[in-house]
């Protein structure tokens, strides 16, 4: 008994002494983190990790050789602790995931039959692989073999499918792919990505000014994954309900399906999926990057400002919006009438943006009056985005246009409607202009009680920039088009109140710079029509008078024709921390263009704040969606074969001539049914650069 006790005690003491002294005498410095990591591991020295003991494993982890999860005994908790010790948690918050960008697979045509090593990289050595498409997936699954997490497999269509649950974003697939199809990106990087000529982009996607991944979300709709479709849209467009209603959808003009029958009703599908999400009422989680600590001020709560706010927030910055009008939305609130875009629907979009959290808003404050750049900088903002829009109207160059009573600028006319205080109008109203704003003025005049509404335009209906559907809607609502006319003077009564307008007939001459034929007035063709009100809807300009004030910071901004000059890629102005986007940065454009510009501005600001290179890569894709130019070579076809013809679905709308249609602001265009949406989604050929699904159902 006592021997046992003594023996063990002696043994313990000797061992302890020996080790204690030895560890002092033979002390060797090593990375202190190794010891900390060892503490997190199982300490069993079992060798299960493949390293020789826990110390070696820890050293490997510290040096980055071994993943933090290498110790199977310590498990996931251990891995988390090791990550904490090594400070890897910052990177872990924004998870990298892999995405396959090619949708070709088996359907992509081949230029030859390949025989040899079943490996993409091997096949690539022979004329870049058998696939006709230079950037298409070769389908041998080198990425699958490279993935040690079993997160990739070749799907039934012959291209790799990522299992996002399993993907850890290690990047092995990206390295393995000879064609750069697999891309491992953080969500932020995906938000920041701009279309490149080297991307795999369908024609519609190239054309969309907001660069929405159209084939992807339509494919989600096809599979009934409406929420995923909506999230896909939100990657590029935070106002899907609004754009779904008012977008003139240039994408559909580029749709390859149009070569066989009709283009796919892309915009209706977007509207469908975003309405579905709205009606479902649940809030889908939109990922937001960890806070960066930067604050950005956005002057103007229009679509571009809202879009920029949304993406800046998602990139991890704090945002505050300053708006001089009581409501957010800018031109889409105050410019687009209720019957096209109900205010509450618009606010669904806006509220979702604020749903991210971290975005503040202050309304009723005007830049240059209530605050200026100095006060913003003083308020701790690191960058300022000006999205003040174009709220001044352009002149129609008719004498006395701002003196004659009853002549109204479209901006004012529409804004007063938005404010709930419409301008009183008479029975006969004329609107000059052929754009969508003009159409809005025309159609709201009908609703405000005008009996006779004229549209005056200097070219023909064919040349009108407004959407065809809008023009048709006007016709449905009994609006008369007076085309090829140039108003020359107003006729007034003695009080200076408008009674009519005199105009000259035009004929079309040579095409001008925009490719449209120039109208030439015909001498002596004067005609007069009686009018009570005349609305000027021929364009807007930015009110940038504040830039003229000497001695302020703002005065360093350059302006050109009222617009604030910026770099069209980075949106940076002459003042490095000031960015502009939307209508105030150039000629007023489409809502969807403003949304796209908002994201570009967000990118510019993000890169500026993070100190990264702001310039676009040389491979930036620049498509002119108005003139359908600049697409990736070879992607715009003349004809396609093998498509079973099947027309597009009709746009449901309020019965023309009905009371609601003529006299109320009830929404005219309706959302398609789920059945129709699925039918339409199935018409989509899921194009990529050159290949497309021939057997659409």
């Amino acid at each position, binding site marked *: 008994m006592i021997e046992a006790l003594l023996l063990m005690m002696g043994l313990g003491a000797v061992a302890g002494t020996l080790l204690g002294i030895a560890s002092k005498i033979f002390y060797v410095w090593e990375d202190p983190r190794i010891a900390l990591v060892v503490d997190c591991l199982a300490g069993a020295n079992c060798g299960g990790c493949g390293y020789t003991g826990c110390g070696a494993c820890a050293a490997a982890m510290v040096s980055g050789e071994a993943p933090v999860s290498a110790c199977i005994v310590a498990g996931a908790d251990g891995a988390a602790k090791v990550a904490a010790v090594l400070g890897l948690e910052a990177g872990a918050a924004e998870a990298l995931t892999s995405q396959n960008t090619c949708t070709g697979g088996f359907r992509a045509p081949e*230029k*030859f*039959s*390949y*025989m*040899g090593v079943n490996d993409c990289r091997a096949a690539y*050595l*022979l*004329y870049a692989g058998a696939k*006709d498409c230079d950037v298409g997936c070769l389908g041998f699954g080198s990425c699958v073999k490279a993935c040690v997490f079993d997160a990739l497999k070749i799907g039934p269509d012959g291209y790799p499918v990522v299992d996002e649950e399993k993907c850890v974003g290690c990047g092995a697939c990206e390295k393995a792919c000879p064609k750069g199809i697999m891309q491992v990106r953080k969500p932020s990087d995906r938000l920041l990505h701009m279309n490149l000529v080297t991307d795999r982009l369908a024609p519609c996607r190239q054309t969309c000014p907001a660069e929405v991944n159209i084939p992807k979300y339509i494919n989600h709709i096809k599979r009934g994954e409406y929420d995923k479709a909506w999230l896909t849209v939100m990657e590029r467009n935070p106002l899907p309900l609004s754009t779904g209603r008012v977008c003139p959808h240039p994408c559909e003009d580029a749709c390859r399906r149009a070569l066989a029958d009709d283009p796919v009703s892309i915009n209706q599908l977007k509207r469908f999926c975003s309405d579905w999400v709205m009606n479902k009422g649940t809030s889908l989680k939109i990922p937001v990057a960890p806070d960066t600590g930067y604050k950005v001020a956005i002057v103007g709560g229009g679509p571009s400002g809202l879009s920029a706010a949304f993406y800046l927030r998602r990139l991890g910055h704090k945002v505050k919006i300053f708006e001089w009008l009581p409501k957010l939305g800018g031109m889409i609130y105050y410019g687009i009438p209720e019957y096209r875009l109900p205010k509450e629907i618009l606010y669904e979009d806006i509220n979702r943006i604020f749903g991210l959290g971290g975005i503040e808003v202050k309304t009723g404050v005007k830049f240059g009056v209530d605050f200026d750049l100095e006060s913003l900088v003083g308020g701790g903002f690191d960058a300022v985005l000006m999205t003040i829009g174009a709220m001044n109207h352009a002149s129609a160059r008719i004498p006395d246009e701002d003196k004659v009573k009853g002549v109204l600028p479209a901006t004012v006319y529409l804004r007063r409607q938005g404010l709930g205080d419409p301008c009183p109008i008479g029975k006969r109203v004329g609107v000059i202009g052929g754009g969508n704003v003009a159409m809005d003025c025309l159609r709201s005049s009908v609703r405000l009680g005008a009996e006779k509404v004229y549209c005056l335009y200097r070219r023909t209906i064919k040349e009108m920039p407004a959407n065809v559907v809008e023009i048709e809607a006007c016709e449905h609502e009994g609006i008369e088009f007076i085309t090829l006319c140039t108003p020359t003077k107003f006729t007034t009564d003695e009080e200076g109140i408008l009674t009519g307008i005199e105009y000259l007939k035009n004929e079309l001459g040579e095409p001008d710079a925009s490719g449209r034929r120039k109208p030439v007035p015909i001498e002596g063709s004067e005609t007069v029509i009686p009018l009570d009100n005349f609305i000027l809807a021929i364009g807007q300009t930015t009110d940038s008078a504040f830039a003229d004030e000497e001695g302020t910071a703002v005065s360093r901004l350059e302006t050109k024709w009222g617009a604030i000059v910026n770099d069209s890629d980075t949106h940076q102005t002459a003042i490095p921390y000031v960015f502009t986007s939307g209508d105030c940065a150039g000629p007023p454009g489409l809502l969807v263009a403003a949304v796209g510009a908002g994201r570009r501005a967000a990118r510019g600001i993000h890169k500026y704040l993070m100190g990264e290179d702001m310039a676009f890569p040389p491979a930036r894709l620049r498509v002119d969606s108005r003139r359908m130019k600049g697409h990736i070579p070879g992607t715009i076809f003349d004809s396609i074969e093998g498509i079973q013809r099947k027309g597009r679905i009709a746009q449901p709308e309020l019965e023309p001539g009905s009371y609601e249609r003529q006299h109320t602001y009830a929404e005219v265009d309706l959302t398609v049914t789920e059945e129709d949406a699925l039918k339409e989604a199935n018409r989509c050929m899921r194009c990529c650069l050159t290949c497309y699904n021939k057997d659409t159902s």
Partner: protein
Amino acid sequence: MSSQKKLVVAHAPYWHDGSKISTKNYHIMIAALPAVLMGISQYGAPALAVIAFAMACAMIWEVIWNLILGKSASIGDGSAAVTGMLLGMLMPATAPWWLIALGTFIAIIVGKQIFGGIGFNPLNPPLLALAMLVISFTGIFDFNESLRHYDLGFVMTYPLADLKAFGPDAIGKFGMGDLFMGRQAGAIGSTFGLGLIVGGLYLILRGYMRWEISLSFLAGVFITALLFNLSDSAKYAGPLFHLFTGYTLVAAFFLLPEDSSSPANFIPMLIFGAMAGMMTVLIRNIGAYVDGVVFAVLLMNLCNPLLDKIRPKAIGKVVENA
């Protein structure tokens, strides 16, 4: 630049000498025929049944495995048939059906397919199966016991068992000529020395087999047995006896040179064969088992990866003096 007709693009070379795994395997089966036919003629229908059933079973296991894994069928290459045939050749004619089914399962699935199939088996599949069966079912592989109902007009005891039990004195009754001509008890396809040698020579000449391994193995057996015999001829049998009995010849020509479990470089092949021969005689003379071939070959299979590291210096290779 795409043309209407699609050509086939492959990497060079565009010529091939026409050899195929299946051809190779069919030739191995042809070469084994003389020994097998002799076995069948001696032991009759049961021997035929064993060989046929072993081949069938082996191929069925292979097919089943391919189906389970969804791999393309590899049955056409004949390797399963060869494995089955060789395993059958190593069995006594009285082997029960379940033994063959189990043996082929081990050989095909456990011995080969779970390592990735043909070319990846680290050990010789038929021998692996045989080793497992031998240590499990000693009764069946005791040839004296299992062949006792046969009377074929020659001494019906298993020479090696006699040697083990009674020493070299007991083997005088076996004439070398008889042993060579297959007039001895044993497994179906391993007794007919002449047939095996003819088959082996055929394979060697046709280039389907590595002669280095066979010859060094035979030399290894011969020399080791001779040394033992010289040291104490009262305890150890002579070299020819070791050559012509047991599995020696079938191992030399059909088992040892199995492709994936044997070395491919010249010197390793010689070492491999010679060591296997030496181990065979060692086990026979001083080990616990009656016939050493099975374990000798398996042991050398284990050494194969290490042995194959001995290789000629490639032309142009720079040896750094580190």
